[in-house]
């Protein structure tokens, strides 16, 4: 986050964003191309499923297009985009939480009462991801921003809209809770 990953032979994000805000379509395309993977990764870390992450990422891209004109360059583009991605992902998850996602093959499992359905992709660290995603939303968000997205507490605080102290507190509570959860899994 602190480092701009703009390639030297290319314009910085902020320059591109400025041009895009002024209506430069190509500049905007470069920006989206450059940030898509990061946005998608964030979406996946929150949602745990590629399908959903792809949908969220697309939505973020569209929102970026719709609001790029308001970008004035006083914050890093990345922070700005992050924030949009984060809010979109959280909204998406919230909206989806009440919905049951079951594959027909999982329904079979239910009938056989063998396995619980897994809406998430099967990946390394499944238990940890799952445990983190099961935290209360604010603790989950703090953990994912600070540990998975590797932001500083201050950056996370900005995105979460709270103080650094609150972030630290969420992290502290999250660690306590995760310990219990993971002990149970093990």
């Amino acid at each position: 986050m602190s480092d701009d990953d703009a390639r030297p032979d290319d314009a910085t994000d902020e320059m591109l964003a400025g041009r895009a805000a002024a209506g430069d379509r190509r500049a905007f395309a470069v920006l989206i191309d450059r940030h898509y993977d990061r946005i998608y990764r964030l979406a996946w870390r929150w949602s745990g499923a590629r399908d959903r992450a792809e949908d969220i990422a697309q939505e973020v891209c569209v929102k970026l297009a719709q609001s790029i004109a308001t970008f004035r360059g006083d914050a890093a583009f990345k922070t700005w985009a992050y924030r949009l991605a984060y809010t979109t992902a959280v909204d998406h998850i919230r909206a989806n939480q009440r919905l049951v996602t079951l594959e027909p093959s999982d329904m079979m499992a239910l009938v056989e009462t063998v396995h619980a359905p897994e809406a998430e992709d099967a990946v390394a660290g499944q238990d940890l991801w799952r445990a983190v995603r099961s935290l209360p939303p604010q603790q989950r968000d703090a953990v994912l921003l600070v540990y998975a997205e590797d932001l500083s507490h201050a950056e996370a605080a900005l995105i979460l809209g709270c103080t650094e102290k609150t972030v630290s507190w969420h992290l502290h509570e999250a660690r306590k809770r995760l310990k219990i959860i993971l002990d149970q899994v093990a």
Partner: protein
Amino acid sequence: MTAKDLDSLKSLPVPPPRDEAKAAAVSAALDAFDKSSGAAQASTAIVRPISPSTNSSRRSLMTLTRQQYALAASLAALVVAAPVAFHVSRTVEQDPVELSGNATPAPQVATKDELSKEKSDADKRRASSDLLTRLDAERKRAAEAEVDIAGERAPEPAASTAFASPPPPPVAAKPLAAPGLVARDATRRMEAWSSLGAIGAADSQAPYLPAQLEESRDRFMSAGVNPVKQVATDPVSTFSIDVDTASYAFVRRALNAGRLPPQSAVRAEEMINYFRYDYPAAETPAEPFKPTVTVVPSPWGADKQLVHIGIKGYELKSAERPRANLVFLIDVSGSMAPADRLPLVKNGLRMLVEDMQPDDTVAIVTYASGSGVALEPTRIADKAKILAALDGLGAGGSTAGASGIEDAYRLAAANFEKTAVNRIILATDGDFNVGLTDDSQLKDLIERKRAGGIFLSILGVGAGNYNDRLMQELAQNGNGVAAYADTLNEARKVLVEEAASTLFPIAKDVKIQVEWNPARVGEYRLIGYESRALNREDFNNDKVDAGDIGSGHTVTAIYEITPAGAAVTSVDALRYGDPAKPAATASPASSELGFLKIRYKLPASETSTPISLPITDALALPSLDAAPADTRFSIAVAAFAEVLRGSPHTGSFGYDDVVNLATPARGADPYGERSEFLNLVRLAKSAPR
């Protein structure tokens, strides 16, 4: 739990996005970019995604209009899971951390980045922080709803809920803690559901089940496979027809995954009725169908015979078909890009369009982050235009607009005709971001529109995101079908074949009753329809609900009978019975094996009409080979179901015998369904026991 463990989160691999999805996102973004010209417009253009509703969506599971075994099972599991999950979410709600977090609006702090740019233009800063503030406000609004959501997560058996609070139950173990209960409940619920199984019939949403019906169902449930009955003691057999076919899809899925389906999931009648048979159809819609009865020697029981009853619903001629006014509402979000999603939907709809009449109309609305009208209502006569619009659809090609579903209803209303079939077909892989911000609002809208005569059907595709419950609920509110398609063939079946019968029911509450002649038949057994059994007196009771038949639907029922006086019987005759008496009473009609009666109601009628047919020797064939191919094939399917579910009545008849019987009876098989059946039989043979 140390910071170190958590540090691994950033290095854990994230499954990469699909290229199609990225391309779709970029093109959608550029589309939106082109559309938002000028800062003023852009600043109001931030689209809110679906936000949480505050209204529970758990009502009337009983009135689902289409039976699907798998869904029924999942619903049952949800019902079992609910109390546990609810408890968990209550705990979350009371969690002080959560509450304090939600209640305190925390001040913002600037990052180092922002501080370093302190000197930049104040106006610009204000503009940007405006955005942040707006986002904050949105987020808070949403967060305030979070508590409600926690209470709402109850019916979700997924891991996230199970984990929601310490001490967490093991992942989803609770919902499944009572396997017997789940299974029982699953089947029971399915029964309830299938009794209402009218597919899309406008008036099929009976809100209750007659109690006696439920009782008899329960009884038959535990029986599993219909027992052999003695004509002397139990000469009358009564059941409701069933045109559901979900069990077949279910069995296929299991076998394709390399395992045998659970025996309880195999429903012989649903497997038999999955296939279309070319029985002679009735001549006029006034008499909507006619039965075709064939009596053949049983391939698995020496001395036994099969009485094969085939019914084909009157096929509405195009002139008699009401005009169709369809609006396709299509999800074009990024995840729809893979071949088994949007391309599948497009192909399926293309086939549907080919099958429609020149006066029918079609419109297309797409949605992803926004929505757009891809095709204004167009007559099928202008087919090229419709096909071109379908071809032009691509994942990500959405435009910012008001609301997909509202657009769809608007277009349907624009073309509304009271006598026409006015229907929206929503195709999605589970993203219901159709434009309304609230689920209950969405359901209300759908219900309201249904009352106004515009129905909603849902076609689900893809596997990852597929949200069966909401789909079913929405379709139910819209008086429509929710179907799932994983292959083009299935999409064709759902959209084209079933569309006709779904859209145009020709008879409802169809019941069958057979009275066997004790002089000729000693024992009988109905293959399948266990869950559809009715009491003898239900037959004439128009209050008792039964299955519906759509235009062109076929229904098959097969009885196995043992002639009276056969040397080998399943049930010993009564020592103290009066063997002479039945023979005497039946003698006037000794060429009759039995008497078939069918009762049905015309779609708009509340009183039933009977039709009847004596089952005479004239209908008997000397050998099974002499029977029509369709008859033989349906018998093979019945045998397969019997073997799969471990029925004790088919003796040593095995998978190889099924293949031998079905192979020459495949017929034209234009869509490869029968060949697929043969493959399934082979898979069953090789599946681990």
